[in-house]
């Protein structure tokens, strides 16, 4: 039987074979990797360098005839001393911290409950993961109706439970509820994702560890804290990383729900950045804004990944 590698070598036309024979393994490896590297440079690295360059100018993409001036660090100074932008950062942090906290707590609890054998387990799991299969645009519109003060189910339910008239408050309007309303929607949509990751973690714990703990007469509570939590922790941290990065970029769903309002109450940094870049067309300024956000996410993610690796090594 002929070796397929030999067959391929035989099938290679002689001129190419001669040329290839003269190449080292390293060169061949580079030849294979080169297209990917080229694409990476063209699509990721070049725009990044270009953005850094633009961030030091007053360039406006919609004003091709205006002279582009080098403004040094002015864009960065303006952004970092702008109270409005710091308020947007706080709004983003509020959204990020609460969504992640709720999703981790509820997601882990659901995974823990569902990680048992009972009738209808598969059906229930499928039903729980349904929200994350929907498009954020659909979810945004759908919840806008649910939150509608006159016809929305949410206000109606609140009235039923508390007796507060449904049309006397607006979940997406003034009164401080809007920033919690967007957290509720994101939690509804993405908790199943965290649950699935936790479920994978729970199912990866071998039964014999629990059996050994039983032999040692460890209580269920002790088993939970000394076996379950430490062994699921790397999975949980991974889920937090994914959700953190995703929610830092959150845009579509919140735009559909509140448009950043009322006022600037739900104006996340990503929405503000889009307005600066593609509605106000302050390209230089928004490039600096994007770089600051990029450095923030990159820095936080790097620290977090190091922590994650340490947890894995334990």
């Amino acid at each position, binding site marked *: 039987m002929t070796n397929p590698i030999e067959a391929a070598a035989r099938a290679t036309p002689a001129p190419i074979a001669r040329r290839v024979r003269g190449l080292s393994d390293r060169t061949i490896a580079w030849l294979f990797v080169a297209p990917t590297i080229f694409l990476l440079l063209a699509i990721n690295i070049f725009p990044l360098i270009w953005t850094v360059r633009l961030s030091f100018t007053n360039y406006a993409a919609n004003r091709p005839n205006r002279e582009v001036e080098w403004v040094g660090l002015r864009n960065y100074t303006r952004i970092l001393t702008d109270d409005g932008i710091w308020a947007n950062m706080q709004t983003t942090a509020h959204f990020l911290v609460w969504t992640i906290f709720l999703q981790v707590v509820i997601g882990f609890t659901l995974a823990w409950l569902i990680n048992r054998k009972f009738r209808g387990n598969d059906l229930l799991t499928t039903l729980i993961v349904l929200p994350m299969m929907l498009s954020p645009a659909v979810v945004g519109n759908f919840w806008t109706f649910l939150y509608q003060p006159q016809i929305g189910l949410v206000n109606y339910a609140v009235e039923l439970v508390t007796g507060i008239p449904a049309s006397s408050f607006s979940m997406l309007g003034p009164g401080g509820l809007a920033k919690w309303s967007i957290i509720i929607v994101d939690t509804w949509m993405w908790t199943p994702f965290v649950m699935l990751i936790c479920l994978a973690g729970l199912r990866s714990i071998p039964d014999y560890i629990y059996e050994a703990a039983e032999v040692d007469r460890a209580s269920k509570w002790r088993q939970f804290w000394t076996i379950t939590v430490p062994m699921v922790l790397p999975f949980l941290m991974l889920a937090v990383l994914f959700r953190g990065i995703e929610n830092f970029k959150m845009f579509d769903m919140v735009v559909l729900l509140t448009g950043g309002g009322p*006022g600037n109450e739900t104006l996340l940094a990503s929405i503000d950045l889009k307005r600066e870049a593609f509605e106000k067309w302050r390209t230089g300024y928004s490039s600096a804004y994007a770089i600051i956000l990029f450095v923030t996410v990159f820095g936080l993610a790097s620290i977090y990944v190091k922590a994650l690796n340490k947890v894995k090594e334990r």
Partner: protein
Amino acid sequence: MKRTTLAASAALALAWAAQANAQANELTLCWAAWDPANALVELSKDFEAQSGIKMKFEFVPWPNFADRILNELNSGGQLCDLLIGDSQWIGGAAENGWYVKLNDFFDKEGISMDDFAPATVYAYSTWPKGTPNYYALPAMGDANGWFYRKDWFNRDDIKAAYKEATGQDLREPQSQKELLQIAQFFQGREIDGKTVYGASIFTERGSEGITMGATGALYAWGFKYENTPGSYDMEGAVNSPEAVEALEFYKELYKTATPPGYDNAYMEQSLDAFKSGQVAMAMNWFAFFPGLYADPNVGGDKIDFFVNPPQNVAASTLGGQGISVVANTDNMDGALAYIKWFADPEVQKKWWAAGGYSCHKAVLEDPNFVNTAPFAGDFLEAMNGVQDFWQEPAYAQLLLAMQARLHNYIVADQGTAKEALDGLIADWTEVFQDEGKL
């Protein structure tokens, strides 16, 4: 093999030539997706029949209109040959070379801007403002107006209740404060077993809604953008005591006389609130009035219209657009032919009859014009007192700054009216400094 290659090349060449020919005989007109756009489609069939040029239309919903079309122009796209663009875009479009300057063409074809209402020429066609440099033909006159439930206003029980509550007769509001009083009277009232509300107004945050709504009050109180036109000296004008009072008024109107949850509403929501019988009065652009009058549920003898009520002065927020030729069209002759056709007084008369708001004097100065529709007189009155937002090339920055300041104060309850207007001056000053105008 050679023969096959030759045949394939010939077929490709033919296909390319056919496509190029088709493009030469086509025009794409871009506009917002709304009632008047549908009327223009019908009207343009005459142009197609006369010229042999096929018309295509690209209508974008209002909330995305500016984003979509300005991106298109900015990227040098060739989607639009003709564009009915918002009045505020004209500064940027002229300076960036997106629109064709039409002076020579107008001179050659005998199209005179004197034949159009001066306010519309100023607002829709000229850049720099007021100079005889024309980048558009006034196409669709528009202003922010009001409409109300005439059937409710005429009911004896409601009239009596209003008289008892206020000591005055219920009528079309003659001032902004009377409008507020009437709206507050209707707020939460039971009519035919249903709770109704005072008025639907513009409060939208994302695009231009709350600015277009609140300027209706600001202009009526005498708001000015500058102390001296063209000087960008805003201190004392933008934050004048009258402007502060107007803004406080608009907030009170929002807080005390609009339907629940009405915190992010623009044209569509205003129409919905009125058509569903929720509100006694509503603000919206005149462009929607023909459709409202024809509405089977709330139109006809159940509706009537009024111009934005004055307070210190008579003034309305300008809407409307001019039609421009996009500079990088590949069918310049066809696009100019369309402009020439559209400028014809007879076409303008048909345009008004079809539901479009002509700006041509042949239509507006016709003695019978005010009788042609129940809102025609109001339209004329409104157009005599229209005021527009900044039309600077940096208008988007100016507009979004105002959106944020107004929404923060009016809807989100942050700060005072004076602080909102002071903040607005700071935002606008920064923009004009960046522009090198201050």
